[in-house]
């Protein structure tokens, strides 16, 4: 077992083995196979968890719960979808479960590192454009975190992570039409939020109050 140790040996041992074969090896009892799957996909899974929850601690807990679950349920993986799709599904569901359980807890979408980066960048006048772009991204992250969870999950998968609508539908276990609908509505809200950031005087009546999960019923086109 090589969890937590130098993974270079692991990497070379599994270099030519694809994810599905790794999953099969894990189910067959190979103690290192799942570690390799985790190593390959951890950053992408983390990105999805972080942007789905909007909170690093929640994301880490959700990711850990999901990975333990995937570890235990690996024998239920049927290889009709990519391993990464299957794992994304588990991660997204674990994160959404956590969000639903903690529905009353406010999110804190701005990671510390982003804030620090913002401060550092601000000291360089010549980097003004970069700063503005950075601010825009930070604001986008913030606006994303304030979207209803289902819309956020759809946008994170399709627009941020680059999954196709069909793949996202598979991950979120809903029809492709629902994904399209959630994405369209989510993008519209993001546009409103960003428009206000860029020009606060222009749209004083824009409803910036972000829709809650409870309000989103009926926005799905099944």
């Amino acid at each position, binding site marked *: 077992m090589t*969890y937590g140790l130098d993974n270079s040996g692991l990497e070379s041992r599994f270099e030519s083995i694809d994810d599905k074969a790794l999953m099969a090896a894990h189910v067959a009892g190979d103690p290192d196979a799942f570690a390799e799957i985790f190593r390959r996909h951890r950053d992408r899974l983390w990105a999805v968890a972080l942007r789905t929850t909007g909170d690093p601690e929640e994301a*880490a807990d959700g990711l850990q719960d999901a990975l333990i679950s995937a570890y235990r349920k690996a024998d239920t993986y049927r290889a009709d979808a990519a391993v990464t799709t299957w794992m994304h599904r588990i991660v997204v569901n674990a994160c959404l479960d956590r969000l639903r359980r903690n529905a009353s807890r406010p999110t804190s979408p701005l990671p510390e590192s982003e804030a620090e980066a913002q401060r550092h960048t601000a000291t360089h006048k010549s980097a003004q454009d970069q700063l503005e772009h950075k601010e825009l991204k930070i604001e986008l992250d913030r606006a994303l975190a304030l979207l209803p969870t289902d819309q956020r999950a759809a946008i994170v998968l399709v627009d941020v992570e680059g999954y196709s609508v069909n793949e996202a539908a598979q991950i979120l276990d809903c029809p492709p039409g629902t994904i399209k609908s959630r994405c369209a509505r989510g993008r519209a809200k993001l546009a*409103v939020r960003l428009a206000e950031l860029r020009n606060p005087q222009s749209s004083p009546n824009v409803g910036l109050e972000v829709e809650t999960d409870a309000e989103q019923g009926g926005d799905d086109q099944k």
Partner: protein
Amino acid sequence: MNDNQDLNPEDEQEIRELLASLDAPTLPTVFSERIEYALAVESENREHQRVHPLVSAPPPDELQERRRIMRPGRILGGIAGIAAVGLFAVVGLQTIQTANSDQELVAKSFPVVLTGTTYQTADLDSQIKKQLPQLKQLTSEYSSNSTNSPASSDLATQSTQSQPSSVQSPTDQAQEKQILAKDLDAMANDEIMMETVASNVRNRIPECLDSIDPTDANPIIVDLAKLESEDHQDVEPIAVIALPVDETVGDEDFEFVLVDINCTKESANIHARLMINE
């Protein structure tokens, strides 16, 4: 602009490009190590359970504590800890196997009997019904003896081996170290390991019960047993628990529940429950 209004294609494209340009975050080392550690524990448990299904995973509380105390740089220490736990469990296996060969073992502090019963997943209720006389007797003895003196069930009295000579309180870290330091051969015949298994079960049962029944039930772990799938391929450790009904204690006032030893509050896996007076 109304936030329910459709975006024009240009604005939508701009939003999509912005979203696609978001930096890909890297999993922070501290979280990565924490998850690796949790997976390592999971891996160890899987290996142990493959060897013998009655060795349970660490209770959730313990994992939560590990979650809190994990810091960068401690991972090697953690791995060493896992190895120690592995050694501990191997010794436990020997003891459990001894107990299995005796078919019963009653510990003073923990009202747990290891009968070696293997239930089949099919028609669990009728199998428990067959066991009812034995379960009733054990439960009655436990409930009527609040001081947890040695049980004197048929099983226990029939036993000519493995009667406990001494019983320690539930193990904490210091005791575990002390136990590990003891001679391994002597450990194999010691009931303390049985207690460790029972302690793990007891740590988990209240959490299971929270999701089973929020009333103030005082569960009694009656038995550790095994549940075998119909094809005999999967065997998992289960606990047979007696739940007092209506807070009264009597021969007819218990409900028996079979749960996974490794189940958590969020995934309590209740295999069967049976009212004794049904």
